[in-house]
């Protein structure tokens, strides 16, 4: 589809190594940007305050489950960060989580498949659904929000068909190594959270040092310019959405593991907005071309801390989401102010 008028990859040119190094430093963001330091500080302050007011908060028995709940948001958040960096959006992740979860749970019940196979099945389903999103978005040339609204409805129908108007009961404990129980953590670190951190680290390296990763920023900054610079925009987009789907599949495994032995139809519901909230609180620009996965991880921790903290303080659970809204406004607002200052400088 793309017109190959430009040679693949950036022109190497005879530029001296020193200049190349200099330009690299100019393009690459620092390891931890301002937004992330602020986020880290906010999380520390919140944890200390919560620890003071509810002594039960800063204990392994409370932090562990909190991190397990962060894991699916952070995992899907990695994919969503990729998507938003390319100036796209994916509102179908909740539906993808639901389809992956129900198919995997049904297979675990009826076929008693081993854990590695269950994880593979969930990831494969997510990958397939995400690839469908990607193909429609890249080659249909319709705005991603419309395509994913549409596919979200179709995926939901698919999931509900598999549910067959009831819940999936008697799920075996095959995936308990991802859950909240004692089998779910080693030395106090929940496995699911460790997986999320590994995914974030890999994505961080990919976005910072891999050519394909850098090209995502180029696509989000200006898709036409990226195409003329020789980036195959459409295949890249298909992969970005497919990976988001695959991570939603992985998140579905954690959702199965953290739930009870039965799975109901509301699994994943509302996750798409929580994930988007985590990504934008983490400093990724919804306009594309700028963003970091480390920020997304911190954003996910912040969102979950606020939601859990409100419950532990004995306040109405629903009040937590008011704070999530306020944090979105503050995080994006400070980013807008800094952006304005940067432009003026």
């Amino acid at each position, binding site marked *: 589809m793309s017109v190959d008028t430009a040679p693949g990859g950036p022109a190497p040119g005879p530029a001296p190594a020193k200049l190349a190094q200099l330009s690299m430093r100019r393009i690459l963001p620092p390891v931890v940007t301002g937004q992330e330091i602020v986020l880290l500080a906010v999380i520390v302050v919140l944890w200390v305050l919560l620890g003071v007011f509810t002594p039960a908060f800063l204990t392994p028995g409370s932090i562990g489950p909190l991190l397990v709940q962060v894991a699916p948001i952070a995992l899907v958040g990695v994919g969503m960060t990729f998507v938003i960096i390319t100036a796209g959006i994916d509102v179908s992740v909740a539906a993808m989580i639901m389809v992956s979860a129900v198919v995997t749970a049904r297979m675990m019940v009826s076929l008693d498949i081993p854990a590695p196979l269950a994880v593979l099945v969930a990831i494969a389903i997510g990958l397939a659904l995400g690839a469908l999103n990607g193909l429609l978005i890249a080659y249909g040339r319709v705005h991603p929000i419309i395509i994913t609204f549409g596919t979200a409805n179709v995926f939901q129908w698919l999931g509900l068909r598999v549910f067959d108007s009831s819940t999936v009961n008697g799920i075996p404990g095959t995936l308990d190594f991802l859950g909240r129980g004692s089998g779910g953590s080693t030395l106090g670190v929940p496995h699911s959270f460790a997986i999320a951190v590994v995914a974030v680290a890999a994505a961080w390296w990919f976005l910072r040092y891999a050519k394909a990763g850098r090209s995502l920023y180029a696509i989000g900054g200006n898709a036409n310019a990226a195409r003329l610079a020789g980036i195959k925009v459409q295949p890249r987009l298909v992969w970005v959405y497919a990976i988001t789907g695959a991570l939603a599949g992985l998140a579905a495994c954690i959702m199965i593991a953290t739930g009870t032995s039965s799975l109901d139809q509301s699994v994943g519901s509302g996750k798409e907005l929580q994930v988007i909230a985590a990504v934008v609180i983490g400093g990724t620009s*919804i306009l594309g071309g700028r963003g970091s996965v480390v920020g997304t991880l911190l954003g996910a921790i912040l969102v979950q801390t606020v939601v859990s903290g409100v419950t532990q303080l004995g306040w109405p659970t629903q009040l937590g989401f008011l704070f999530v809204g306020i944090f979105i406004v503050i995080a994006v607002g400070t980013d807008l102010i800094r952006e304005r200052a940067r432009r003026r400088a």
Partner: protein
Amino acid sequence: MTAVKPGVRHQTDASVGPMDRVRDWFANGGLKDRAVLLLTLIILLVVVLSILDAAGQTSGEFNSDYLASTLIAYVPLALLAIAELFVITSGRGGIDLSVGSMVSLSGIVFAMLFQQAGLPMVVSIVLAVVFGALLGAVNGFLSAYLGFPPLIATLATFYGYRSIALVVSEQRPISGPEISEFYNAAKAIELPLIGQSLPLVPLGVFTFLLPVAVVAWFVLNRTAYGRSLYAIGTNDTAAQWAGIDTRRTRMGAFVAAGAISGLVGVYTVAQFASARPDAGTSGSGMALPAITIAVLGGVAITGGIGKLSGVLLAALLIVWLNASILLVVPGNDGAQAQLLALGLVLLGAALFGQLSLRRRRLTPVPPVTGAVPAVRSQ
């Protein structure tokens, strides 16, 4: 209704046969006119269902009474789609995810004023609409004046308003004798004079939807504000250089969306005979269907393009499609099939629109000899 300016070509060239004209009309994107396409689909739907009904394949009777009774669900859907029409048309990523939350919160406020504070009905309705407009103004202030991307601003207020509605009402619906009586405002009535020969139409269509639709049509098509709205949606910078206060215009779109949401809040109280704190946010919420219908009605997500007729017809198509599905596929399966239908219709309309747009751009239709190329109207 047709896309081609009437008369331009056919008067100059009398030798063109009727088939040529039809082909011409198609080639110039006749079906691209969203209103014509939607009207065709609605007629097709009614014809197919009538045939199925005659063949005894439906679980209930498919007739004008049934179609009219489903309009009770049409009112809130069409109203919120009009709200999205304003916001999305304003461009620069305009979208409002918070309409469902504003519906919930305004409904609660209305019930508190009307039931608990004992204010007169009209005063309560007006205050609820004003309250909705204030909620919309917060969205508008964040988006238009502070420069938040609307998706983010309304995501934040979606969480905020929903949370406030649930906390203020302590997660319990508000009901009482006054509100039960208010239920009459949404029920079906027989029209005076001509009512005998027409099916019963829900009163809400006339008391809620019709006034808003008329005002919205007038504002969009006959006022300077409407022109400014399309202008900023088409090209924000150009509009600014043309002397339009783009920020105030964009603010106006969000305020309008908030006010309409407030009115829908009042309507849902009448519809359910109680004010539910999750009226607009339960399940997947009201915002996503409203955006879907606006897009289906031909509102360009990039702004600047969108017509009231398309939005009203799209809402009608979806409501009747959902109602028809329930007749053919009864029970839970039918409710699920509605999801599939909504998704496929949206994807189909979006991809079809893009496809025909691209084909027109790549291979312009050669004008018939001696004819003036038809000018596309927006």
